[in-house]
């Protein structure tokens, strides 16, 4: 099976996000970057499928030089090849990112393309579905279970208030959600192996962006809350406040 995994490097979830003075970007100087947590599920699934069915896993990431660290993590988990699409920064507009990824994916003739369901920095939730339309192949998002039977796939995905089961065939795109599998920690052997893999670098020409981030702001600080009490005795007062002050009851 010829598998591609698209991964993004994102700030660690614990990172305090600091904005640049012009409020146009996030100040990257103190950020600890990681492999997007959802992408770990995508990489794990790719490696498991390779282990079960044979084939090769190609890791693809678009972004500045620093994304190589995320690529190495994915390789250490079991990826075989890697392509780094070099850009100065991550584009603001997911459609632009997706188009660049699509042109590389088209060339690769992959049976299966795995992604995370969303990147935890921009939280766009877009790339897997966009790629489905651009490549005109099935794309199923928020997947928590995937079964492969020859060329046929069955996926279970989360929807509001339940699950959906979909059937489709390869080539196809999967957006991974937590629950799909338990990602492995890269072994020492895997890390050593990853170091030896040559990451193929490509310059990409990005299309003009139609979505622009004009300004970034911190959310307004919340008014300090009220500690209503330190025992169950406070319950009537809490309910009164919810009823009379907040007017939510």
């Amino acid at each position: 099976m010829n598998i591609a995994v698209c991964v993004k490097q994102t700030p660690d979830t614990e990172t305090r996000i600091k904005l640049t003075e012009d409020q146009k970007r996030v100040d990257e100087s103190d950020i600890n970057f990681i492999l997007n947590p959802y992408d770990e599920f995508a990489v794990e699934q790719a490696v498991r499928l390779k282990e079960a069915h044979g084939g090769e896993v190609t890791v693809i990431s678009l972004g500045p030089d620093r994304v190589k660290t995320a690529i190495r993590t994915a390789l250490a988990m079991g990826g075989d090849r890697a392509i780094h699409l070099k850009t100065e920064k991550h584009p603001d507009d997911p459609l632009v990112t997706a188009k660049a990824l699509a042109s590389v994916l088209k060339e690769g003739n992959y049976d299966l393309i795995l992604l995370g369901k969303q990147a935890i920095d921009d939280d766009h939730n877009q790339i897997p579905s966009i790629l489905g339309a651009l490549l005109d192949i099935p794309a199923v998002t928020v997947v928590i279970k995937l079964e492969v039977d020859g060329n046929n796939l069955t996926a279970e995905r989360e929807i509001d208030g339940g699950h959906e089961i979909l059937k489709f065939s390869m080539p196809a795109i999967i957006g991974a959600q937590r629950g799909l599998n338990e990602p492995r920690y890269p072994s020492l052997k895997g890390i050593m192996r990853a170091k030896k893999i040559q990451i193929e670098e490509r310059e990409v020409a990005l299309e003009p962006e139609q979505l622009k981030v004009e300004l970034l702001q911190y959310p307004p600080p919340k008014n300090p809350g009220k500690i209503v009490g330190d025992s169950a005795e406070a319950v009537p007062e809490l309910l009164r406040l919810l009823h009379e002050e907040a007017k939510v009851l």
Partner: protein
Amino acid sequence: MKVLIYGEHRDGQIRKITFENITLTRSLNAPFEVVFIGADIPDAGEQLSRYGAEQVTLVKGSGLEKYSPDGYAKILAQLVQKHEADVLLMGATATGKDLAPRVSAILNAPLATDCTKVELDGDQLRLIRPMYAGKVLANVSLNSGIKIVTVRPNVYSAHENPADAEVREETVEVPDLKTVVKEIISGAKGKLDVTEADIIVSGGRGMKGPENWHLIEELAELLGAATGASRAAVDAGWRPHDEQVGQTGKTVSPTLYVAVGISGAIQHLAGMSSSKYIVAINKDPEAPIFKVADYGIVADLFEVVPKMIEELKKMKN
């Protein structure tokens, strides 16, 4: 600026986000139409009239009774063009998240997802969307002919505003469907999903075990609330994953969020900090949940929650 609102429905019911988006669009004073794909809604006209929709189209076609990501996307993209809409407005629901990017790709139109503010300034849309799990708010602009926006559910409330809805049916040619939903496994019947609920009662590790969850359920029932959970409670197998609130779970914006025995880790806050009112019940005064809570009680939940249940029962009688 003409807006096309994608109407969401399930089991013959129009979902609340549709009415929210109608109210929002009316507040922008923009002309709009509502389209439903594959819907069988007996009283669509009556329901939509109540919220002020005037033009409604129910799109039918063979095989469209069930959601098909690629099929719905192609049809919706055609509808945007046919209705000459400038803006496609959808909900940031499971369907909206899946469908909107596909339409964006087909029409080469930019998409701003999960917006918490939508304003109109002349012909320019002013949009705000949270990024980095709500740690940053971004003002984004879409510079194109057609623009696509998804709005976070529950951020705008739906107001009744009667009008006369004209409901038309339109039958379309259905393209080859590459992906079709074979089966829907619903959560417990009649269970309110956290993303649609006005009030949510969530439990965390402090609940100690699933055997105590009747407290959360009873409190939720008295409040007419949905039940949620922290990841610790889900990982322990006490609650199903579809109840998880937070960065790797659902993002919710209810009017009232009651956090019981939840510490308020940054990843949990990511999913609920845009709630209008937050109540925290936790025995640790240092728990970070108190930093975002509007009202807190620092005490043992096993004393506080039963007391809440008792008092609410009294209020009901």
